[in-house]
């Protein structure tokens, strides 16, 4: 039986709820302006409230948008639950388990929006902060905007001391070793222009949770404008992150990224895949725009 969604016609519904009702019940006939990707792996407990929060907030903006849940081989009821929602503009992409990076990449490469956001399934970064990230693109020409728990003005709730310490250590390594100036590479709240997303995710090689680092490394070295926006972040219980395991895995992945860059493994296949350089940026060494080589990045 098809359920009528909230906002489907009560006179007392708010404008935001009415827009949500329309989005939930009527397939888009426009190309979406915004695509939101939520990667999932065994998120049956958390995914529905997150979908609800995202759907209401983004629908309230009044622009056509799409939601993509990119499931990474869940073995619980995540897929069935998402399918069962019957939301007209939600797409479920399913795959065998490859890692969060793989799930995000599949979702992003399927996205059609002008602005592409990926968010974590636990709503640890409340979606109400989306507008602040978008402003950096629409008003300041950013290509990539990173929600940051470490930038001035950010707030973190309930995060353990071990995680904070490891994050601080990672920040030091990425800054010194990779020239990435973003304070928080790992927050699962990142916004891209369509062009930047298409280029970066096509080059991405890591499928695990170090993929954020790889993307920012690529973006930095390709001269894209990367900015960070301080966000409120709440540590959701049930986090799958084991801090020590993460630290060891990061160290290995960092080495891999440097090795691939040194070998020229990030060279893109065709000009169409390359993200645009910033205006006025010089081409990389070798005169091949978009070809990434391991070179010193000035601070």
């Amino acid at each position, binding site marked *: 039986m098809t359920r009528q969604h909230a906002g489907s016609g009560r006179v007392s519904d708010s404008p935001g*709820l009415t827009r949500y009702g329309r989005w939930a019940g009527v397939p888009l006939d426009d190309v979406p302006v915004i695509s939101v990707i939520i990667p999932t792996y065994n998120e049956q407990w958390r995914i529905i*409230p997150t979908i609800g929060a995202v759907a209401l907030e983004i629908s309230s903006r009044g622009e056509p948008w799409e939601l993509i849940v990119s499931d990474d081989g869940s073995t619980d009821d995540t897929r069935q639950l998402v399918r069962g929602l019957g939301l007209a503009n939600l797409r479920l992409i399913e795959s065998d388990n490859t890692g969060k990076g793989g799930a995000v990449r599949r979702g992003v490469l399927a996205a059609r929006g002008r602005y592409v956001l990926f968010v974590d399934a636990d*709503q640890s970064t409340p979606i109400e902060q989306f507008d602040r990230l978008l402003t950096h693109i629409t008003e300041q020409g950013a290509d990539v905007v990173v929600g940051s728990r470490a930038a001035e003005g950010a707030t973190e709730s*309930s995060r353990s001391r071990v995680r904070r310490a490891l994050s601080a250590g990672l920040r030091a390594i990425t800054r010194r070793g990779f020239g990435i100036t973003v304070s928080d590479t790992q927050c699962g709240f990142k916004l891209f222009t369509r062009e930047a997303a298409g280029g970066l995710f096509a080059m991405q090689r890591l499928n695990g949770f170090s993929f954020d680092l790889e993307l920012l490394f690529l973006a930095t070295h390709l001269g894209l404008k990367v900015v960070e926006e301080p966000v409120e972040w*709440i540590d*959701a*219980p049930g986090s799958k992150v084991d801090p020590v395991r993460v630290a060891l895995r990061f160290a290995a992945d960092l080495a891999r990224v440097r090795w691939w860059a040194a070998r020229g493994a990030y060279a893109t296949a065709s000009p169409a895949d390359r993200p645009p350089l910033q205006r006025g940026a010089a081409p990389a060494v070798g005169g091949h725009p978009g070809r990434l080589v391991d070179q010193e990045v000035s601070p």
Partner: protein
Amino acid sequence: MKITARQRPRLALYCMEGRFDAHEAPVVRETLDRALVDGRHLLALDMSAVTFIDSTALAELVRLMKRARDVGGELILFDVSDPVRVILELTRLDEVLSIGSTAELEDLARG
């Protein structure tokens, strides 16, 4: 999340403000369980200022509803905010939990 208690003659009214999630659920449990033990079996939650509700909080509401009904009372959510309303609908808990308006709350308080 901020919880403000407003006692009325016939019911225990709690105004919830902010994010209602797994971090807040224990406080809500303790507060409302105490009300039930104290004999206040009609529990009313003003949800107009709740910005997000997660699955742990939803489970807590269902548990409290069952506990209240076990002693002949009820748990009622009033003036549910849009985010909570959407989440209740998507989880189909709008068919399980009692949901009302301010007018209904006032009627209930007056008896």
